[in-house]
């Protein structure tokens, strides 16, 4: 028997092909530049309304949004602002929504001691632990007693009051943190987050059925595109097709699988709701746990027979 004393193994998945050959990308892939300030302003008329929503979504889907205007544009993608709204209407909305947000917070702060105990147990104790370990590598949330961490905490607690059926599930802090870091304003971020929780297909919900549906899609995709790997999962018995190794990909929309800049680019493309099917991840062959020394590969790309 070979000597394998104290061998340490860490399961590692990595992206094998960060750049795809042009034959595998969408034919329109290279036609769009990143949406920058001037391009963004071109999408707006003199009242500040988005002229052609479809064109904007298309531009964002292919080109992404320049970091400098994410805070401006994300609220549209997250259904906080409607595309028909004028600049003036949006300012009025923000004022009204800020008042609403304050009312929600007030409701939270005026719980009876008994209500508060229950809230602490089911929501607050976990939120308190999670906000200080969310996006710590981002300068925006770094350090002790960071006021931005406190904002994130209030948003999550207030959300649990606003939507007690969902309350707080681990993972929500990962979703709200990047929005806060771009949108900056606490009330605006809260309402963007409300939109995110309602509208995006990737987002976590505490009910089994949503996750089950996502897994069903993924299994079906695997069956169609990666038969060998699908067979392998089937051969593992009941637990193989649960695909525990990819639950986090679905829940956080690949946030922890990619460097932040790329993950947010994926988020934007999803939020653009343009040709959604195109974003279905196609898994490369050979996704299997391997020793650290030979990282195994996950290739995330568009389907070769792209519509």
């Amino acid at each position, binding site marked *: 028997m070979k000597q394998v004393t104290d061998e340490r193994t860490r399961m590692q998945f990595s992206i094998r092909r960060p750049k795809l050959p042009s034959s595998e990308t969408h034919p329109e892939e290279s036609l769009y530049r990143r949406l920058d300030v001037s391009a963004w302003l071109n999408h707006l008329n003199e009242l500040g309304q988005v002229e052609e929503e479809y064109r904007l979504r298309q531009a964002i889907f292919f080109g992404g949004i320049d970091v400098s205007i994410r805070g401006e544009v994300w609220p549209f993608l997250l259904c906080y602002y409607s595309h028909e709204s004028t600049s003036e209407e949006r300012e009025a909305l923000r004022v009204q929504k800020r008042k609403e947000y304050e009312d929600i917070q007030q409701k939270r702060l005026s719980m009876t001691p008994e209500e508060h105990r229950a809230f602490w147990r089911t929501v607050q104790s976990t939120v308190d632990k999670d906000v200080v370990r969310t996006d710590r590598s981002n300068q925006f949330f770094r350090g002790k007693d960071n006021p931005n961490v406190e904002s994130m905490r209030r948003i999550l607690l207030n959300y649990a009051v606003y939507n007690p059926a969902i309350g707080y599930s681990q993972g929500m802090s990962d979703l709200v943190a990047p929005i806060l870091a771009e949108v900056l304003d606490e009330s605006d971020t809260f309402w963007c987050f409300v939109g995110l929780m309602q509208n995006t297909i990737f987002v976590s919900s505490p009910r089994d059925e949503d996750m089950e549906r996502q897994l069903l899609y993924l299994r079906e995709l695997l069956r169609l595109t990666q038969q060998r790997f699908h067979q392998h999962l089937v051969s593992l018995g*009941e637990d193989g097709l649960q695909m525990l190794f990819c639950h986090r990909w679905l829940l956080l929309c690949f946030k922890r699988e990619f460097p932040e800049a790329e993950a947010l680019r994926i988020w934007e493309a999803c939020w653009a709701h343009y040709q959604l099917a195109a974003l279905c991840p196609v898994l490369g062959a050979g996704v299997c746990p391997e020793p650290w020394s030979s990282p195994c590969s996950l290739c995330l790309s568009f389907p070769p027979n792209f519509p």
Partner: protein
Amino acid sequence: MAETYDFLFKFLVIGSAGTGKSCLLHQFIENKFKQDSNHTIGVEFGSRVVTVGGKTVKLQIWDTAGQERFRSVTRSYYRGAAGALLVYDITSRETYNSLAAWLTDARTLASPNIVVILCGNKKDLDPEREVTFLEASRFAQENELMFLETSALTGENVEEAFLKCARTILNKIDSGELDPERTGSGVQCGDASLRQLRQPRSAQAVAPQPCGC
């Protein structure tokens, strides 16, 4: 490269959010403390081959979120586990209070015979202690658990916790209390031990079946 080991044990790390489950795993595998670690979402895995009582054992460790929502995850997570680290935080009474519920889950969803070691983690934060060693020892005794106070930060007792659990499982195999060939035992035989088991019985060459893990 195919690994060679006598046994493979499926281990779980369970306990409330923020007790240091992933940090214990990380300390055990990497021998260092994980600074600024994220909370776990879904399930993460780690493994390490150790030598216990002359046997080579691969520990396949499953680590999940303290707040787990999906029934499907829970079922697959617990199924067929041989051992578990049940973790609480000595500076948080709340995490100690939920131990009974975690233990019930482990014994009903994994196996009534799962070998559990109770870990009072964050031992290095003694000044902030809310749970005494004595009362946790009593809880462990009443529930037939092994018990250690650990520190994922300094590494104190981390290795011991995993090895102690592995040793107990091996003892159960040796005494016949645990049958590694039974499905759901949480134990798989490596090719080395299969050879041992089969050779005395028959002279014919048996192709060793690796565990495929």
